């Protein structure tokens, strides 16, 4: 499409806002366990999450849009995760990365929360132990898709 002075586009504000939101989903810098290693790999040149506009890991929950729960949540960590989630500004999204975050995984014991969805709402679950970086990329893709379409909740990212 050729654009020159005098031409203009018409769009609904909602669509523009969603487009902007979906291409700048900033994750929260929060690594919980070994899945965090794969999460860090996603930012490397090989996987390059910057292509999706999500390379800016924010250290403050006030500036983050996306919480990637990357690993098992200990009972003692649960209130911290909940508080971080509460501190994030709306709209916000959550990826439950890996078996432990989604269900407790192999840690069927007293110390681990059996699924992070028991304390915060989860938008996309990524299976795997740990999931490959592609899996997480796909999950971010699904989040973007959700944002554009305005829906949310309970998607299983199976690549």
């Amino acid at each position: 499409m050729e654009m020159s002075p005098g031409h203009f586009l018409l769009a609904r504000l909602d669509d523009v806002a969603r487009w902007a939101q979906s291409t700048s989903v900033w994750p929260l810098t929060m690594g919980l366990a070994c899945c965090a290693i794969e999460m860090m790999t996603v930012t490397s040149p090989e996987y390059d999450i910057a292509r999706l506009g999500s390379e800016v890991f924010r250290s403050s929950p006030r500036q983050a849009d996306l919480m990637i729960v990357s690993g098992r949540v200990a009972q003692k960590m649960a209130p911290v995760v909940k508080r971080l989630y509460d501190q994030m500004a709306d709209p916000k999204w959550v990826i439950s990365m890996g078996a432990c975050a989604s269900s407790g995984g192999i840690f069927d014991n007293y110390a681990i929360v059996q699924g992070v969805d028991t304390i915060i709402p989860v938008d996309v679950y990524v299976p795997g132990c740990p999931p490959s970086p592609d899996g997480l990329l796909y999950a971010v893709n699904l989040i973007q898709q959700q944002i554009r379409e305005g829906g949310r909740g309970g998607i299983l990212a199976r690549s």
Partner: protein
Amino acid sequence: MPSTQTPPIAGLAIDPPSLRPPIDDAVIERVEPAGLHARLEELAAGGFTMLLDLGAVDYPQREPRYDVVYHLLKLPATAATVAEAGTPVRMRVLCGVPGERPQLPSATGIWKSADWAEREIYDLFGIVFEGHPDLRRIQMPGDWEGHPLRKDYPLRGPAREKAPRPPFALKSNVQAGTPPTGRTLEALQEQIARVREEGASP
């Protein structure tokens, strides 16, 4: 100074530590709770300036039920050579603690590094250290009930102990109640008898 084996507690049917193979990297000594503090002070004054680690073990079928283990290190005060500095003396002090009202004197007055280690033992085993400056839980949340590293603490926690496991976690080929290792009490006692026999005939 190589030691032979962990000194057993006299008159016990089962004392797992005394059945381990000989360890010769440290001097191992068993102390009664009453004499523990004096002995530790004596060791510290004798050059064991470092408390490397402090842990506890639960032997539920034994009395005293717990063993608290102090790992000590003595470095030459003024090492003349590199070799001398590189050959520290290690020491392990074991102390049996009764299952009813487990209590020991705190070692924080002797080694500062005992602080968090004693809190951890209190948290996970419920052994109270008298004279500790700040005996709170350190690993588990502050309002936690029970002491999870005790052998009688249910793995999935008291609340979920009876909850059914998901179908994929069931092993139909394993009889209910079999410990994961497959070693029952009978098997353990047989093994102990075997070890004792082998030990008796050189």
